[in-house]
């Protein structure tokens, strides 16, 4: 039975995380730009810089958050099972016992593929926390982890 101590996500995933949120923030800044230009009656000349200013402001906050988010995201594989720690303000720990794993998906987005990363999606038979995702793993690490969790599961019949 393979085990390892707390690991961080791949450094590249921080890039993926930031790029995807940079795009999300483009959308988020939109309504703020519209409201502020209505509020101050801005002309087109100022609307565009306003948009970029808002984007920069939000992205700045997000950048600071992402550093801590990345630091807090950790996972470990013990003999009991997979344990994930995450969250900056609202901190969470999820524990999935090895023998409760129903099935595991590996998904890869276009950005993640560029950096050779994958996301592990572990399903249990629970209700509220039935699906637990672990992003930012190297493709072969994700496959290994999946194999390890499934293998240790095979020894017992979980039906």
């Amino acid at each position, binding site marked *: 039975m393979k085990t390892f101590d707390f690991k961080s996500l791949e450094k590249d995933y921080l890039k993926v995380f930031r790029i995807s949120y940079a795009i999300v923030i483009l959308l988020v800044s939109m309504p703020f730009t519209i409201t502020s230009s209505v509020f101050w009656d801005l002309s087109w000349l100022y609307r565009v810089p306003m948009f970029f200013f808002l984007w920069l402001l939000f992205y700045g906050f997000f950048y600071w958050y992402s550093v801590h988010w990345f630091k807090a995201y950790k996972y470990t594989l013990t003999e009991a*099972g997979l*344990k994930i720690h995450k969250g900056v303000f*609202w*901190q*969470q*720990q999820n*524990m999935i016992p090895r023998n409760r794993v129903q099935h595991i998906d590996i998904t890869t987005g276009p950005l993640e593929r560029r950096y050779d990363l994958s996301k592990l999606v572990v399903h249990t038979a629970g*209700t509220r*926390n*039935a699906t637990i995702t672990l992003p930012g793993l190297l493709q072969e690490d994700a496959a290994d982890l999946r194999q390890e969790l499934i293998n240790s599961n095979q020894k017992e019949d979980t039906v």
Partner: protein
Amino acid sequence: MELKTKGYRLHNISPLFLFIEAIKKSVLPLLIGIVGTSGDKQDFIIIAIASLASVITIVQFWFYHYWLEEDRLVVKEGILFKSLRQVPYERIQNLNVEKNVLHRLFNVATLQVESASGVKPEAVIRVISDDQVKFIQRVIKQRSNAVDETEEKVEVIVNDDNDTEETVMPPLYQMSDKDVATYGFISHRALVPIGIVASILSQNDYYRNKFISMLQNFVGELHVERWAITEWIIYGLAFAFLMLVTIWVSSILLAFLKLYQFRLARQDNNLHAEMGLLTKITANIPIKRIQLLKIKDSPLHRYFKRVSVKMETAGGVTEQNGISMSWIAPLISKAKAERLITVIQPEVDWKAISWLGLEPRAWKRVFKRVCFFILLIMAPLLYFYQGWGLLMLILFPLAFIYAKAYVNKAGYAANDEIIAYRQGVIFHTISIVKVAKIQNISYTQTPFDRRNDMARITVDTAGSNPINQDINIHYLDVRKVNDLMKRLSIQVSESKFVW
């Protein structure tokens, strides 16, 4: 006895029941059609719904086949969207039978098969003859019991089961008529439906005028505009009393309809429950499939010195989409409830459960939280009614009492076999989960928790309520939570989960 692998058809009377079911599903548009619209459109809506229901009926009846294979039940249905459903016997969670007056007239029944998947029943066979129901029940029971055994052995069991089938087990729990009436009174089941109907009708001028004129037939002219305060109070109290009695009587009636002659017995490894006055429901639940046990009581429960015991199974079927059966004992004395639970789940040893409290300092947090909500409501009141809004401050001592009681009442227990949580100031709930039924464990810490060195631990089970989890221990010292989590992780990973 040989198992037919050729498809069975539904009973010939089936279209009638399917039609009724299709109508039932479209009862809401029907109601809107009748109450909501005015004039000539009503007929069209009714005709449209009736014709749609007929089409659904015919399709369902003609293209519904099912058969029993060596190890699975197979259901084939549909024309445009065909589906072939295979349910292995060992995966079947519950087997429920419904019989209402109409069913009884034709000697047929609706059979519902539940597995652990999702919220819909795996198969609803509507309707088949009584003999066929018995046959299917018997086959499923034997086959699922004989999972690990060889085929020859199965054959043997099939043969001698015909004799043992007739022996009636003594019931674990039974409800007398008095129990049912008491339960109806305690539950106030009719409160919500009556409230909804009354509020809808009171919005409709026509019905309101009709009600008032009907009332005036009995008590004479009311002359509301000339009422003094005393008259308001007297009439108000009389009306409230009338409503209360109506609610009680109809709640008791509802209880009788649902729980009349409730009987819970044990057959081998299954729980067998029967209940109902006009619509009779029979449910078969494998004991090992019970995921969670819940003991509930309200102030009225305590007045009658009774509790209610419920269970959760992995099939999340609710009353809206099938026959749901979650009762173990609707009304039972506490001592008997404890004994009954130990019979059903021997792992639950009441002597081994030692309740641990939350952190005593947690009351401050509950108090602050309640106060925050009081202030939140007070803000608009202050704006609209100025000084009068300050009356809300009277609630603060109540909040203090509530917070103290909350922390005193809440508690948890964890031992080798189970984890239990109890909570509630006015309505008490005790939830018990066997360690082997735990799916995953989570820990959450909010910024407020962190300031107070506290955390929350939740335990997820199959078929649990997705909105409020039953084992959700909050306001616990972070060190205790960490210990508990570590211990539970090891315990769970060492225990085998059986569906």
